């Protein structure tokens, strides 16, 4: 479980995060949503320790991140898997080498053990024939799946995904969403996804945190988001006619 209390973060005089408090539960897909510029990416980077923050606390299983020394922080990060928006695969390595990278860095496994594990996770993300390809030879969807494979290869306790569906077609987006949710349940990890894809919210949002102008405006789940009367949330989530209709139908079905 990850707990955040009264988090403040500024760049110069501009305050980006204005006292965010929330928690992300184990075994669930937690989504951070909000408009562009609402502070989602900054919030995610604070959670990962890539940005320092002015005040507030972030604790992983009760351990306050800012109180850890550099070595403890690095050890904690070794338990984190991250899927970046642009996948962030290492250009100079093949897909198999990219996935093997965390194992080479943090385990003492033999080469055959590492290869077995890489084969297993690549099969898990339906990429069992792409070992020798370079990242530049893979499609956007494949790159995202490789990034997920790399993120889970070392059995992380926490999985972070920054807009995992950006640049993907709707069908591939659903595949990626389902894959993340299955992995979260299968390995009982704490997953935090940064997204503004409403399909993801409706499909896998077991917990949803809505940010607006650096504040936590609302939190709930994919079920409660249909019933909320928070104007900022409804304006954002139901901005398209399709989702307005979906909401109407949902409310009609549940009222009957």
């Amino acid at each position: 479980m990850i707990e955040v209390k009264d988090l403040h973060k500024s760049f110069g005089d501009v305050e980006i995060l204005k006292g965010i408090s929330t928690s992300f539960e184990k075994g669930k897909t937690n989504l951070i949503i909000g408009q562009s510029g609402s502070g989602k990416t900054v919030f995610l980077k604070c959670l990962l320790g890539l940005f320092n923050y002015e005040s507030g606390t972030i604790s992983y299983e009760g351990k306050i991140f800012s109180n850890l020394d550099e070595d403890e922080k690095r050890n904690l990060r070794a338990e984190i898997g991250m899927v970046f928006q642009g996948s962030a695969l290492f250009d100079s390595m093949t897909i198999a080498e990219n996935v093997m990278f965390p194992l080479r860095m943090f385990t003492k496994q033999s080469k055959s053990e590492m290869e077995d594990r890489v084969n297993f996770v690549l099969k898990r993300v339906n990429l069992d024939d792409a070992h020798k390809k370079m990242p530049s030879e893979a499609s956007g969807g494949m790159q995202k799946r490789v990034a997920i494979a790399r993120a889970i290869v070392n059995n992380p306790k926490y999985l972070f995904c920054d807009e995992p569906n950006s640049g993907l077609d709707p069908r591939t987006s659903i595949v990626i969403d389902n894959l993340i949710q299955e992995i979260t349940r299968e390995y009982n990890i704490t997953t935090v996804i940064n997204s503004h894809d409403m399909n993801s919210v409706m499909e896998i949002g077991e917990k949803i945190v809505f940010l607006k102008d650096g504040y936590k405006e609302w939190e709930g789940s994919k079920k409660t988001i249909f019933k909320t009367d928070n104007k900022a949330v409804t304006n954002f989530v139901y901005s398209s006619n399709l989702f307005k209709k979906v909401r109407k139908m949902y409310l009609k079905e549940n009222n009957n």
Partner: protein
Amino acid sequence: MLYLQNIGAYFLMIVEMFRKPTKWSVMKQLILKDIDDLIIGSLGIVAFISFFVGGVVAIQTALNISNPLIPKSLVGFATRQSIILEFGPTFMSIIMAGKVGSFITSSIGTMRVTEQIDALEVMGINSLNYLVFPKFISLMLYPFVISISMFLGIVGGMIASVYGDFTTFEHYIEGIQLDFKPFHVIYAFIKTTVFAFVLATIPSFHGYYMKGGALEVGKASTTSFVWTSVVIIIINYLLTQMLLS
């Protein structure tokens, strides 16, 4: 003020580069890859430039000797001194700032832009040690490149002056042996080692701390070349003042 801030950040980067070392089995491969990219990959251009510039130095020296009292061996002597004292270590390092330096800045800068450095940090890897340290170690072989440059520069001078009828082979050989001071070679290698450190760290600094996108990677490479050259010229002056005067 920004300059002071950058100088401070540069020295902090160097300290951080030595902390939390990467696993040796991984580091070994990174060092070998960087030796291939930075050292072996530079030998061709270094050999080509050294050979022809050595020839030009010899021809120009010979053409400027009009007094018959000046011995013909001066061509070899002047070529050797120019190549060992300045051309090999300094001029070649400026060229390497363009070739190796911009390669380092653009490769690290691209990793920054595409979040590959963030990926390393999130995994708990000291990205400065992972990226910069192998370049620093592999560039410690840079004096080997410069010794090849010196050799080929002198050979180029010999071929140009003998085949161009500016002097004889015997006179040229006599000239390169004339008043030889081994300390000059030591001085050249001291300079080269310091320049190797500059070549590894200043371009890495510009790549690692760059902000922006693809356009900024190009700008960072240019800035890195300018600053690496400026620092090499200043250090060259200071070391010459300290070691030779």
